[in-house]
């Protein structure tokens, strides 16, 4: 389910629109992940708090979102562009890839909340495909 040329344009344009709020979206999305899917907290047991909205959760959500925004600039070759991040997740973090889908869903919910007019079905499908491709590239080195 790769992105057409048109859909890549849709993704780039939408991320331009949301550029001022990506930090909020990231922080909010990770908070929602641990609230809606509590099993995901298992990856963060070393933090002082894994509560939704807490400082470590929000900060890490922003970190992740920065990575997502960066991936938009590497849209034409995610596999090569995300090589080192893939190695990090494969050999060090070892996050089960099913969780990428769950976080992706929470990001889509935040985008829909913050940008109800702009997050049309056309944008939704393009961004969903992009997040899926991102997840695939991220799990490339797993095995």
């Amino acid at each position, binding site marked *: 389910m790769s992105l057409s040329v048109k859909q890549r344009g849709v993704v780039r344009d939408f991320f331009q629109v949301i550029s001022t709020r990506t930090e909020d979206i990231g922080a*909010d999305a990770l908070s929602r992940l641990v609230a809606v899917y509590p099993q995901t907290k298992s990856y963060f047991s070393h933090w002082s708090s894994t509560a939704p909205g807490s400082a470590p959760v929000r900060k890490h959500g922003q970190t992740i979102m920065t990575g997502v925004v960066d991936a938009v600039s590497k849209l034409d070759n995610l596999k090569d562009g995300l090589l080192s991040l893939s190695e990090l997740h494969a050999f060090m973090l070892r996050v089960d890839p099913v969780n990428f889908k769950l976080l992706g*869903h929470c990001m889509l*919910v*935040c985008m*829909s909340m913050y940008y109800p007019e702009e997050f049309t*079905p*056309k944008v939704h499908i393009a961004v969903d495909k992009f997040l899926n491709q991102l997840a695939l590239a991220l799990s490339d080195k797993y095995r």
Partner: protein
Amino acid sequence: MVEWTDDERSIINGIFANLDYDEVGRKALCRCLIVYPWTQRYFGGFGNLYNAQTIMANPLIAKHGTTILHGLDRALKNMDNIKETYSELSMLHSEKLHVDPDNFRLLADCMTVVIAAKLGSAFSIDTQAAWQKFLSVVVSALGRQYH
């Protein structure tokens, strides 16, 4: 059996109390058919689904969106017994309609996105958690009678 806190019951009842069934039902089903196009396989008799515009203008799809959302009413009124409440509907979807139960999850995700757009910041973290818990129980109940 599923345990519901008072807060969760209140949140879910609150969402339904202020819901425009026609609008949300139509938008959620359209979004599902557009974002996950393979779901269109179940709607062969529904007329023109050629592209996003025709899907969103299709009156049969709009009507069916409303039907689906009213189907959730049953779960709302029987929150402590959703599994039994949906036993027949589950058999219908399995034996007669032959719907892959993974599609229930896809539609539920689209409903969440549509409700999020409608409620904006009112779709708090706790609200999303309660809402998705409710939908996951419904989705599970609908898939229960498959064999």
